[in-house]
């Protein structure tokens, strides 16, 4: 057997082995236990593997193999977009405390602003040209990646800040991805990839309408398809088809794939589906292998020796963590009183969501022809940034524990014995926990 072929077999088989290993529920349980995201547990090994496999001397992720993986790539973007969109259930949003809305906005918009600002400065300092606002586009993409926070481990945070606060943080993490996607959608509309071969010439507002309209039509189509499904197997088949079609149409029109699919998913979430949670579970089951493929392919373009990537990663992490902290301070002022202290809130929301990889990959797919080196730096910033953020969070947490200072209002720990009736007799018994900081 030719050594090149043997290399491809061994390489793909080892990637497969690792993917299977890291997709095991036990690994997820370990992640939850240690409070780390997929970026740490699987991100680094897969990223490194992608980088090594793409080396000419190794020759496993050859350009041919990468082209073969491209359809799976687009499909994956659409899949994750649908998952994000399905979280946007208006009925659930209506049930949230009204004052949580500003928290979601602040916790996603403030980090986006700080990241856009600092990363734009970093990009300009590294010599990215002013022409056609290329630096602004890259900075905005990085800003979009800064918004989403990693889902928290409810059990762990319940012990630390109480049930109500943990639920609120969880809601924030499940919705803030939408803000990042919205910004990415705007970027894809304002900075259209130039393609002389296209037959449509439309102004930006028309592209905005097209993005919204296409997402809406695809959402309705998906609903009609799922409604007509005669059994679970057919439903899965039609769901696969709807996601692929949505991703394919959006990609074909050079729109942001996850954005269009998220609009479709959001519409689907708000139409009468008998078992929305079951549908979400079906989609979530395949989410992790998709991330692993992303990481492997993204790793093929990763150049860890490029200093610019590390500079941008540092700027990204600093701006993002600072933005989350600022957002937390502001949120504490305007948000519900049950929210934990600003410090705790910032620590809870600082870890980067894996969906930021999707945002980055989507932008890289759209703009891969424009300054490939800048695409590599941005990828480096988001992926390494994700890992660095977790390190920063650990340090912050360690400091918080050492100082023992926390201004979180103490949620009650036990069910108190019924007391003599008070004027507000309909108040429910309060469950309290002791926050770590005060223990």
């Amino acid at each position, binding site marked *: 057997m030719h050594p090149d*072929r043997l290399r491809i077999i061994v390489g793909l088989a080892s990637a497969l082995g690792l993917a299977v290993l890291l997709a095991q529920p036990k690994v997820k349980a370990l992640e939850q236990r240690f409070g780390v995201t997929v970026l740490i547990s699987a991100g680094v090994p897969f990223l490194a593997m992608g980088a090594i496999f793409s080396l000419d001397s190794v020759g496993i992720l050859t350009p041919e193999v990468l082209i073969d993986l491209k359809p799976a790539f687009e499909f994956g973007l659409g899949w994750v977009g649908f998952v994000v969109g399905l979280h946007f259930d208006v009925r659930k949003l209506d049930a949230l405390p009204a004052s949580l809305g500003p928290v979601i906005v602040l916790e996603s918009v403030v980090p986006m602003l700080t990241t856009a600002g600092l990363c734009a400065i970093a990009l300009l300092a590294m010599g990215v040209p002013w022409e056609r606002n290329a630096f602004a586009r890259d900075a905005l993409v990085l800003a979009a990646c800064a918004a989403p926070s990693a889902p928290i481990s409810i059990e762990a945070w319940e012990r630390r800040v109480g049930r109500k606060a943990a639920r609120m943080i969880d809601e924030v993490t499940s919705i803030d991805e939408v803000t990042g996607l919205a910004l990415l959608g705007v970027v894809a509309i304002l900075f259209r990839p130039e393609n002389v071969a296209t037959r449509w010439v439309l102004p930006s507002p028309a592209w905005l309408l097209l993005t919204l309209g296409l997402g809406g039509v695809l959402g309705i189509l998906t609903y009609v398809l799922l409604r007509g499904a005669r*059994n679970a197997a057919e439903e899965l088949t039609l769901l696969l088809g709807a996601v692929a079609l949505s991703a394919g149409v959006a*990609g074909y029109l050079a729109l942001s794939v996850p954005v269009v699919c998220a609009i479709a998913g959001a519409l689907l979430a708000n139409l009468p589906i008998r078992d929305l949670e079951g549908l979400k579970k079906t989609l979530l089951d395949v989410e992790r292998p998709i991330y692993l493929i992303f990481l492997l392919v993204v790793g093929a373009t990763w150049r860890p020796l490029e200093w610019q990537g590390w500079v941008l990663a540092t700027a990204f992490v600093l701006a993002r963590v600072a933005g989350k902290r600022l957002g937390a301070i502001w949120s504490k002022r305007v948000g519900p009183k049950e929210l934990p202290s600003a410090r705790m809130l910032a620590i809870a929301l600082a870890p980067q969501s894996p969906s930021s990889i999707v945002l980055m990959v989507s932008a890289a797919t759209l703009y891969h022809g424009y300054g490939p080196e800048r695409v590599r730096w941005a990828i480096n910033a988001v992926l390494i940034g994700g890992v660095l953020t977790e390190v920063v969070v650990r340090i912050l947490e360690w400091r918080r524990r050492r100082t023992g200072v926390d201004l979180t209002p103490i949620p009650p720990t036990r069910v108190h014995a019924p007391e003599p009736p008070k004027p507000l007799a309909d108040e429910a018994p309060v469950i309290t926990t002791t926050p770590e900081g005060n223990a």
Partner: protein
Amino acid sequence: MIRAALVLALVAGISFAARSFLPADATITGSGAALAFGFLLIAAMQTGHIFHDLRLPHLTGFILCGALFGPEVLRLITPSMLGDLTLVKKVAVGLIALNAGCELNFARLRPKIRSIGLVSIFGLLTEFVLLFGFFSFVLGRIEFTAGMTSAQRLTVALICSTVLSALSPAVVMGILKETRAVGPLSEMCLSIVVLADLAVVVAFSFTESVARAVFPPDVAANGAGPSIFGALAVHIFGSIATGIAVGLVSALYIRRVGQRIGLFVFAVLFVVAEIGGALHLDPLLVGLSAGLFLENISPVSGHEVIHETEVAAMPTFAVFFAVVGAEVHLHAFFTVAPYAALAALTRATGIFAGARFGARVAKVDPEVAARVPFGMFPQAGVAIGLANLVATSFKPWGEAASTLILGTIVINEMLGPVLFRMALARAGEIGKKREGSLLDLPAHAPTPEADVETT
């Protein structure tokens, strides 16, 4: 049916509108493939529903849908999009073959092995002999053999009749899955097509060697190296060895890990499809060998694998047959339509007569014997693959011979599934398979209460 037609029109409208963004001959690699995959999956399912209401197989609907929207008619799916879907097709072939292999338990088939062998041998031999006679007679009247000697014409006839002897495990498996048929006819048909197809692939390597000997090297210009026979031997045995390795790894995984088996099997087939191109492996043989190994040698039950991969079966079949349909050479068919129709008729006669005779010799139940030939009519993947090999291996005549073969395959591809489904219905085997299945689980569609709530 109206709903399916409306959805089909909507999906086609969206896809045509999106395609108009770029000139007709341009495409985008990743997005084009995703668009083609999504469109074919949804459109094939809707066409399948329409065909179901017309009491025709879904599978014929899938194939027709592919043919209609493919590069030769409406051109929504371009040849480059089809090229991008090659990997999907290979994975699908692997999965279909794996399922077919897992269905075949030699211990259970042992009492019937004589019947299966006799029906296969007589069916194939009669089919081959009649086709050979037909082509020997017809080829003298066709333009591309004008300058050939009698020996060379006979060799072309040998090649054409060998390729057209191929059966279709994929179609048979597809119809059995779709109809959830189980019973003596289903079992016998599946066993015959799997074993007979292996025999045809091996036979093709011999006939190709004969052709290489008859046609001087400057005429039989092909880039496959000095010995096609050797290459095919490596291809066959390499695929079988790889299949056994895949079966072994899968069995180990199922025994040791036992979680997300479907995803694991799918990922393995993906790797096999990816490396198969480089190593000249046949995904059909790999999947088949892996399935046979799992069901017959390993401690793991093949039915466990079938159950775990069932979730992927419906999309796999829909996309595979829609792609097969999109690859249908309609123009080729129209150029050779009369000859193709006659060849298809000759083939059907040969199969019918031979299989019936074999069944009588083997004393097969007359009810089954009367219907077994219908399972042998369909043709698809393997035959198309061999026809394409003829086109590329034997220049200058290979192209024209391949056109003639592909034209015949179109008829068998369209009519075969319909006839086989009818035979299964008459045998009363449709819908008899009742295992815990996704087909028994409800969808997430809204309940009437939800409808009331919204109104």
